[in-house]
């Protein structure tokens, strides 16, 4: 196990800069998710840690070693690929033992270690099969087995669950988490799925356009997004955004919508007339309670079982609220909800930066 440290790391493909001078420290034993929309550079960054992609500038170290010039082999990392990349002409056991074989371990040791990893992942009955004879979930597990069998310094996961169906994805997510809790190997996990990132990682790095937008504990990113991008990216359904003009009255700061409604905000000083974007999460809108009352008519009602998503119209803007599934809401009828002042995020409209205290 080891920490991974990146200092001023850059990557360009020809004239295109994919990663702009990025600094990131991944603690020993941590589970870090790199998350962002496609093209944000997260996979490239992972491949640079793996040594599959050259570093244009800056320094990457694993443990105390600078690895920029080292081959993937010398870095002692394991990687799980999106399409698993199992060797089709080898059995499950051979796939898992390939690394140990290349490392010239004895046949007996290879067998013991493969058997042990297979037991941990429930692959024992499949050891003699070829990848083509396995289901998607089994292949995924073999790919993980190939990674754990060698006891690497760092695990790298490149969107490992995106080829699985929804149910299996949730199941494998749990297995990956269980695996990490068992072996405690430093893990870097790339995904575009923020739920996967939230559930798995103890540290999330949100990337956008080759830069880090924000990093921290999942709940910290959820509670205090540093800018509009992170606010919109983390959380489902996505945060509601409305444009408003800052101001205050004798009871404190508030922001006025174009229709004249004033939304009370908290933890921020707003000079009169400042253009801002307000954000509030659908799940923070409540039927009762203190705060600003938003009224409108329900446009869409989407029940998901325990919860119901209601899209309602407030002065021509669509606002989404998540309410208890037992609530009777009908499309076309009046709907109202309350926004608590301490859960309204205020962002500068130009820069997108958060204005409430972090």
């Amino acid at each position: 196990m080891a920490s991974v440290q990146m200092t001023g790391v850059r990557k360009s493909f020809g004239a295109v800069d994919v990663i702009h001078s990025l600094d990131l420290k991944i603690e020993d034993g941590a589970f870090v998710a790199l998350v962002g929309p496609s093209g944000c550079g997260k996979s490239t960054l992972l491949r640079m840690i793996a040594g599959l992609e050259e570093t244009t500038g800056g320094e990457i170290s694993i443990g105390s070693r600078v690895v920029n010039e080292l081959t993937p082999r010398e870095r002692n990392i394991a990687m799980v690929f999106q399409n698993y990349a199992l060797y089709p002409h080898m059995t499950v056991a051979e796939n898992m033992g390939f690394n140990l074989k290349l490392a010239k371990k004895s046949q007996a040791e290879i067998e013991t270690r493969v058997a042990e990893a297979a037991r941990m992942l429930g692959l024992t009955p499949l050891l003699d099969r070829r990848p083509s004879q396995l289901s998607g979930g089994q292949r995924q597990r073999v790919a993980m087995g190939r990674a754990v069998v060698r006891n690497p310094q760092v695990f790298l996961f490149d969107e490992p669950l995106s080829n699985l169906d929804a149910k299996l994805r949730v199941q494998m997510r749990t297995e990956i988490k269980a695996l990490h809790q068992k072996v405690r190997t430093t893990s870097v996990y790339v995904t575009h799925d923020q739920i996967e990132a939230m559930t798995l990682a103890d540290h999330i790095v949100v990337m956008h356009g080759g830069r880090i937008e924000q990093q921290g504990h999942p709940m910290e990113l959820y509670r205090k997004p540093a800018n509009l991008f992170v606010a919109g990216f983390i959380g489902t359904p996505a945060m509601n955004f409305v444009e408003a003009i800052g101001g205050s009255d004798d009871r404190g700061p508030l922001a006025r919508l174009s229709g004249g409604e004033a939304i009370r905000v908290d933890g921020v000083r707003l000079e009169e007339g400042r253009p801002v974007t307000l954000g509030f999460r659908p799940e923070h809108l409540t039927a009762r309670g203190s705060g600003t009352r938003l009224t409108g008519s329900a446009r869409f009602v989407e029940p998901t079982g325990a919860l119901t998503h209601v899209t309602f119209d407030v002065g021509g803007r669509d606002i989404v609220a998540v309410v208890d599934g037992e609530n009777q809401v009908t499309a076309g009828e009046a709907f109202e909800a309350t926004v608590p002042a301490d859960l309204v995020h205020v962002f500068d409209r130009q820069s997108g930066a958060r204005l409430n205290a972090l």
Partner: protein
Amino acid sequence: MAGFARGKRRKLIGNVLTYVGLVTLFLVFVFPLLWIVGISLKTREQIFTNPPVFFWVPTFENYVQVLTQSDFLASFGNSLMVTTASVTLSLLIGIPASYTFARFRFPGQSVAMITLLIMRMLPPVAILLPLFVLFKAVGLSNTLASVIIAYTTFSLPLIVWVMKDYFANLPKELEEAAYIDGASRMLAFRKIVLPLARPGIVTAAILSLLLAWNDFIFAAILTNNATRTSPVLLASYAGGETGTNWGAITASGVLVVIPVIIFSMIVQKHLVQGLSSGTVK
């Protein structure tokens, strides 16, 4: 009920027509071969009987005649030698070359690929004469080496064009997984890429084998009586003072086809195995 019976009959007629078609096609393709085998088992008189005899006691005198001539065995040996060498050489050069074309980007890449094709577009004769002059100049005329070099030159474009696509279609992640597992580029190529490319390699090998084994025109010009290959010898049975020796031509023709059939049967297994070894996703 009546409708059902009619449907059944229609299906039967369809089946019969299908099989009639298949048998006709089979005969069209196989008949010349059967006819050659037939002639090779006839005496000289039977060969020239008109109308042809369809039932006769087969004789092996043509085979005895051919096999007891040192000419045939010598040319057969030359053919084996030339073919084995040119196929081996073509694969040894062609496989790494096509892998390079598939996996690396370098300046002039597409020009190089097209140039290879142009080589094949020229009529062989256009290349033959310069080659002849060239080999004479370097003292290689009338040697097996000259034919081997000529065949390799002609096989390489075939191999590169077949194998390049094959390599390009193998998922790159497989090699990357191998690097992460601790393999060097060379080792990943040997342990991962080559085994998976086996069906492509077999196809390329068959193509270059047929080219070398069946060639007449290059061997006719570049070899002499000592170094000539089977097709050249076969041609020499035609014409001459005693007229065309059909018995010898057909018997040696059959003997020459046998190695190709055996080779195809052996490698066919690899073709099928390769196709069923499964995908990654």
